[in-house]
């Protein structure tokens, strides 16, 4: 066992921490949050130039060959700054799907575009009524000439409007929740027959409802099918779940620091409220929860290469704990800030909302506790 960062990893950590602190203040972030795109294109390009988009992608496709630890480091810092750019969706989730599932032609075409910042991916997996079941797929793919015809609805597809590529899960056969008969397709996001309803999410991110109506794709668009498709999806979602756990840890750290600072400066009854033991103990509990969350996010990242059952168990343990810890830390931070915590002006409420959305992303605490217990 070795839990030390390498020198290269420490450099990435220092760089991204500095970036978030100096170039991504809450006021600057707002420029992206209120824009049509939902983030800033020039920041995305900056990520590319700094090597972050390719940090965890293989060298043969223009990346730097890093591991899940590089992803964890970046995501924790992004969480700390409530970074809006769709790193999780395009690089982490899209990258994992392509690496695990795509043909080499697709990898050669798309991965270099991802790591250079030329293109982005969105993954359309959730459907109305699917909840967190990745195998619950009603979208159909019917053989049509040399290609396929896609029909179905996808819900809350993050950052679809700013993506050049869509990956969609669809059903070649079988019943709605069968583990078999699933296929993954890679297609341009502006393919004929796709309609989108775009919106902002509670935490200033962007997502879309997507309707696929008789969308024609050629045979090469199919990149994974048969018994392999669901394991590829599950693996990629686990990779993304580990990343969002680190994201949450960053947000928790920021909230803890802000709340601590507030406790030290806010005066009532003639003294700093942090002198009251009832708040000290709640603050200590917040600190413990954050450290537990950090331990679990690290462990999830380190276990991503383990065999599937061990990987799933580690990721679910982490997500279950982090969903619960995130809720408690968020609520406590607002409570201890008093009325100020309720304002739009202060960033506290924005972190609270982000942690709430992360709580149910890729499965909520109960879902993951159940998956953990079943393994």
């Amino acid at each position, binding site marked *: 066992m070795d839990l030390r960062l390498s020198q290269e990893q420490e450099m990435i950590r220092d760089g991204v921490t500095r970036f978030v602190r100096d170039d991504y203040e809450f006021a600057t972030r707002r420029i992206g949050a209120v824009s049509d795109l939902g983030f800033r294109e020039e920041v995305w390009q900056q990520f590319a130039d700094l090597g972050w988009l390719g940090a965890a992608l293989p060298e043969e496709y223009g990346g730097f060959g890093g591991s899940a630890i590089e992803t964890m480091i970046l995501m924790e810092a992004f969480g700390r700054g409530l970074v809006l750019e769709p790193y999780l969706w395009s690089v982490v989730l899209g990258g994992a799907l392509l690496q695990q599932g795509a043909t080499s032609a697709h990898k050669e075409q798309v991965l270099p575009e991802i790591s250079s910042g030329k293109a982005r991916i969105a993954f359309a997996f959730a459907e109305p009524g699917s909840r967190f079941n990745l195998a619950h797929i009603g979208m159909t793919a019917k053989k049509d000439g040399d290609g396929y015809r896609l029909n179905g609805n996808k819900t809350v597809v993050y950052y679809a409007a700013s993506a050049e590529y869509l990956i969609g899960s669809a059903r070649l056969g079988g019943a709605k929740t069968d583990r078999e008969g699933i296929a993954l397709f890679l297609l341009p996001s502006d393919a004929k027959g796709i309609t989108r309803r775009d919106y902002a999410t509670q935490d200033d991110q962007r997502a879309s409802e997507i309707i696929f109506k008789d969308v024609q794709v050629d045979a090469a668009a199919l990149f994974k099918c048969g018994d392999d498709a669901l394991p590829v999806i599950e693996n990629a979602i686990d990779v993304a779940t580990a990343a969002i756990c680190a994201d949450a840890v960053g947000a928790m750290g920021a909230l803890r620091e802000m709340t601590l600072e507030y406790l030290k400066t806010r005066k009532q009854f003639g003294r700093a409220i942090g002198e009251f033991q009832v708040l000290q103990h709640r603050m200590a509990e917040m600190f413990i929860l954050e450290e537990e969350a950090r331990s*679990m996010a690290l462990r999830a990242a380190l276990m991503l290469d383990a065999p599937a059952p061990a990987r799933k168990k580690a990721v679910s343990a982490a997500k279950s704990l982090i969903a619960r810890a995130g809720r408690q830390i968020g609520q406590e931070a607002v409570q201890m800030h008093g009325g100020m915590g309720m304002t739009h002006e202060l960033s506290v409420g924005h972190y609270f909302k982000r942690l709430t959305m992360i709580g149910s992303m890729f499965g909520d605490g109960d879902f993951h506790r159940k998956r953990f217990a079943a393994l």
Partner: protein
Amino acid sequence: MDINDSVEGAKFRTEVREFVAANLPADIKRKVDGGLRLEKDDYVRWQRVLFDKGWIAPGWPTEFGGTGWEPLQRHIFEEECALGSAPAVISFGVNMVAPVIIEFGNDAQKEKYLPRILSSEDWWCQGYSEPGSGSDLASLQCKAVRDGDDYIVTGQKTWTTLAQYADMIFCLVRTDNSGKKQQGISFLLIDMKSPGITVRPIRTFDGSAEINEVHLEDVRVPVENLVGEEHMGWTYAKFLLGHERVGIAQVARSKKQMQRLKMIANTELVDGEPLLSQPEFAAKIADVEIGLIALEMTELRILSDESAGKAPGPESSILKIRGTEIQQGITELLIEAIGYDAHPWVPAAAIDGRNEPPIGSDYAASIAPHYFNWRKASIYGGSNEIQKNIIAKMVLGL
């Protein structure tokens, strides 16, 4: 980074596992597995096995008989001992007073006491708490007055675990009353056979009598038994408490208990189905197990920092708080798991070699007393509320 054992780590793990399997006496293993009461002789026999192997004091420097293991190696050792059903090494000597003697004691004290601690010749107990000084430990009043080459010690210690077995007690005593309460405390090593010492057992509500009152009445203690400097005892006490908190997480023992809980929950039936398959119960087990995983990973992070030269800081209070919450959580689920079988109070059934047949399942007799007894865990070693004070003050700066 790598979460797996290194090649040497894996080799060492196998070595420890094989050693425990081959050398742990079968009767002791049976008692540990069944949650039955361990006697003094059981602890001492196992400690002597470890002593003969040179493994009794993993945390000590090699020059005094330690193993020289890295923190992560110690973690593997603890884990394999616990998973192999070995009893815990009693901390008071090896893990509590010895580090203080090594750090602050003089050569004569090191030569006299350390070998006897290693060989389990001396059983130590801890004289910290007093009737009026629990969480506010520094308010302690047991006083030591200098008289020639002796101190004369008068006062009372309480909650003294296993003092009935002890040959020696390390005591915090008041040598000065003039300044702040933390000043004027000294650290004395006292022979339990000294005239004027009386040990009275305190029965606890689980039915055991493992804690005691220790009364000291004009007890003469040679000045050579003072550790470090007079009036500096508070510093040594805090040093010791820091050491105590690291081991207090008891990750490996909780893992073992978790295995036992699952075994029992898989045996107990609800309308013909294993209790373990009931969603409500499975969820409760999962919550504790997830907490245990987080605790272990947090401990590994702290050990990793320690390997890099960082001494364990006040963050180790996390380990005390969460470690004891998890231990207590498991005892709670154990008593829930066995339903009515927890009700019969048959003390003899919790002793190995009993003549009475058990009531209900074989594993039931010790479960309720264990749950009762383990309420102590969030109180001893600095209550969990005190640990939160430590985090608030020392880590968060409140």
